[in-house]
């Protein structure tokens, strides 16, 4: 089975890659483009560790085929900082100790960023449901949810 | 004479049910040898387990001195998660 030649935009830059039809976007990011910040926890869309935005939409990159990407644009955790400056969510996660092992953290940050872009003033319940597709086994979610809500408040204040 | 407590388990298996002994021993290594002489085979089992001297669980007990008024317990090894 011959490989597909795909041209797509990854983190704002045009990239080309070859992939097997069965390779997922996650496989492509990690193995072809060496962007290993997106993690594989289940490969069935149940853990959210591979969360990215595809044409601005939050998705699990394990549930997107690499061959679907022709002409499409994806943003990953590697593109979350603004230059050398951490995104407010990244900074808050550090200060609020909202991570332990850190494996689910990239997915949570990408998903939380999408939440705040979609809803700058989420309630605790809205934040918990939006992030229900991101599994964390270390923290019990407490510090993660607090960090997201505090960041939302900070960002509203900054505006 | 230090007070040595084997615990039900080793007592039933090796010492005919006896669990408490008063022994004159210098250190744990000496104690285990003494017990193994009394109840052949018990030494290897005791080596694999944990030991508490005077209510303190001792990780590397071999050379740990035993005072005449010490109380020594043998207990199963504990594994954490």
């Amino acid at each position, binding site marked *: 089975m011959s490989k597909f030649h795909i041209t797509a935009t990854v983190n704002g830059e045009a990239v080309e890659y070859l992939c097997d039809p069965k390779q997922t976007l996650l496989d492509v990011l*990690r193995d072809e483009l060496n962007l*290993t*910040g997106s*993690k594989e*926890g*289940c*490969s*069935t869309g*149940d*853990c959210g560790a591979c969360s990215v935005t595809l044409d601005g939409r939050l998705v699990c990159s394990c549930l997107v085929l690499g061959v679907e990407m022709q002409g499409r644009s994806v943003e990953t*955790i*590697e593109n*979350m*900082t603004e230059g050398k400056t*951490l995104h407010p969510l990244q900074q808050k996660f*550090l200060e609020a*100790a909202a991570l*332990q*092992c*850190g*494996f*689910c*953290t*990239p997915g949570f*940050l990408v998903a939380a960023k999408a939440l705040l872009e979609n809803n700058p003033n989420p309630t605790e*319940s809205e934040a*918990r449901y939006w992030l*229900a597709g*991101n*599994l964390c*086994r*270390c*923290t*019990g*979610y*407490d*510090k993660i*949810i*607090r960090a997201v809500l505090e960041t939302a408040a900070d960002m509203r204040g900054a505006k | 004479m230090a007070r040595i407590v084997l*615990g*039900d*388990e080793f007592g*039933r*298996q090796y010492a005919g049910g006896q669990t408490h002994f008063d022994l004159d021993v210098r250190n744990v290594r000496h104690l285990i040898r003494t017990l193994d002489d009394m109840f052949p085979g018990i030494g*290897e089992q005791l080596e*694999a387990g944990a030991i508490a001297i005077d*209510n303190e*669980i*001792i*990780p*590397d007990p071999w050379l740990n001195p035993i005072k005449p008024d010490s109380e020594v*317990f*043998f*207990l*199963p*090894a*504990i*594994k*954490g*998660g």
Partner: protein
Amino acid sequence: MAGYEGKQFKWVGTRPVRPDGVDKVTGRANYGADINLAGQLTGRILRSPHAHAKILSIDTSKAEKLAGVKAVITAKDFPAMHNGVLPGDEGVNFHYLSSNIMARGKVLYDGHAVAAVAATSAAIAEEALALIDVKYEVLPHVIDVDESMQPGAPLLHEDIFTTGVNPKPEKPSNVVQRIQMALGDANAAFKDADIVVERSFKTKAVHQGYIEPHAVVAEWSEDGQCRVWCSSQGHFMVRAMTARLLKMEVAQVRVMPMEIGGGFGGKTIVFIEPTAVLLARKAERPVRVVMSRDEVFRATGPAPGTSIDVKIGAKKDGTLVAATGEFRYQAGAFPGSPVGPACMAAFGPYALANLQVVGYEAVTNRPLCYSYRAPGAPLASFAVESIIDEISQKLNIDPMEIRIKNGSKEGTQMVYGPKLKAVGNLECLKAIQNHPINKIPLGPNQGRGLAAGFWFNLGGQSSAVVNIAEDGTATIMTGSPDIGGSRASMAQMAAEVLGIDYAKVRPIVGDTSAVGFCEITHGSRVTFATGMAIIEAAESVVKQCRERVAKMWEVDVDSVIWEDGHARPAPGSTADNQKPLSLAQIAAKASRTGGPLVGSAAINAGGAGPAFGVHICDVEVDPETGGVTVLRYVAAQDAGKAIHPSYVEGQIQGGVAQGIGWALNEEYIYGADGRMQNSGFLDYRIPVASDLPMIDTLILEVPNPGHPFGVRGVGEVPIVPPLGAIANAIARATGARLFDLPMSPPKILAAIDAKK
């Protein structure tokens, strides 16, 4: 070690940003699966579709011929191991361990490895697995522990003869061992009780549920040296077990500790590392093996299902007079259940003069049963706390009062031997008793549940190095994988002792060739034991500094004291006229005063103080569906001394969340064919963010006399009380008490309807 009693800490007890944090929020941190070496192959493992079967033949010839396949291995590629536990093996039977990693002669569970391949792509590796022809003779299987203990149950091993019974059995069975411990005479003492409650409990196997699947990369060089990159709870354990299983010299294996994406006990033993090493040797190329989530569930080391009988007798005033417990724990396909700690910890929160605990362990056709956070204790505690609660209901005594009245404390004789030193059980109970949650009125179908829990905590072997750079900054190294933020606490303790800024201390986890031996990260031992090694190493640096300054000042060392990172003249000493010298100033002159400033320590820490936790929670039960909502949760715990309170809170909150999942929804579901039916995160239901409330934590600090700063392990005890706390809350919300875990909606609804 210098005493720190009453010292005002500058860094200990604060909440600095963790040193590894930035890499983890930017995606830069590397875990086992993130390694990608030149020429790296993909390894895949063929696994048994049967719960129990004899392997008649394995034909790998077709797979070997497939283009792109570089190596195929089976059990015959693994050296034979002695079947037994040799002195110095820390209780590990390497024949069993090897047979679990690659099945020999028989497959003992659904998912048991039978062969492995390394190929140039994942697709080819999977195609190769499909070409391996394994002929099986399917055998009857057994999953449930009670069934496994029955005479005539399908026999897993010919060589298991129950230990701990007299006379020694002549016939093999699935029952690995019987253990017993006692205080006083429980069976006689029941006659003094005004009320006796006896119940039987059943629980299903659960998984640690770490989000990172096991992953390893192995590479051989032409000189026969082997390098392994993997995430584990102990790279020294990976090195020791891999070398032993493959008959290599230990120093021949160098294990690089990658960031670890959760473990909770599940990464304290090898599953795929030796396989990757063998594949890499045979393929003469680097090989990466990463488990799928399905493999993680079917073929790692989940916690046991159990069957438990507990009987407790009490006086009318709530005084507990006697208790017995029989704990029957599943082992997996090989011995190794945590029934010992279960027996020892079950009644830990209670002072009982008459107590007898008996434990049984039986092998079953399911994956190796291994450690999960406070191994064995949560299930035993669930049974005990349920009955304590039922007694308090029947005697109409406040559940808090009965626990305080009988609570274990300093001097309490534990069933496993020692008496307790200073512990925080009563302090935790009183903290919860005074918490505002008790004032919140409960609505219809709501209930409040209370439970206490105990865990030993461990010490053991750790090494640490503190290197002072020429500008006075410090790099510190240990061999303990950082699973929850321990690099931060190591740096805090080093900064505290050295008297320099936290930001000037950079901690790393060294590989097996870079730093001295450290035991696995388990038993809540790292901040306690490895931290003690860091303190000792830092103190050695301080001592060297004082000695060098004493020489410069031409005074004796006692005339030089260490304060806030400076060598100062001891008040009234002959050095009185000298100006203080900072660590940076001393380091700058190190080359003139005796060379590099390096402190190191290798210790075997004793004195790990037991941890106690008390939890209270409110739940609401939907009486028409049996659905449970956890409304509020408060956990109090004695941390001895919290080095980094945020990560202590994180350990408590994480343990609580795991305990809630265990109580309500998590379980291994098997079909009649003995195959797991829910080996994915869709149907193995760990709690999601919307399932949980905020988890309020109360950290108490009853210093552990066995640690210079008073530290106790905190990681494990938080998972002990939640099962009982949730069960007791449901019982009080519905009037129906459940004795089976998980307490899933169908079971709860059935219990409610049965009561009508």
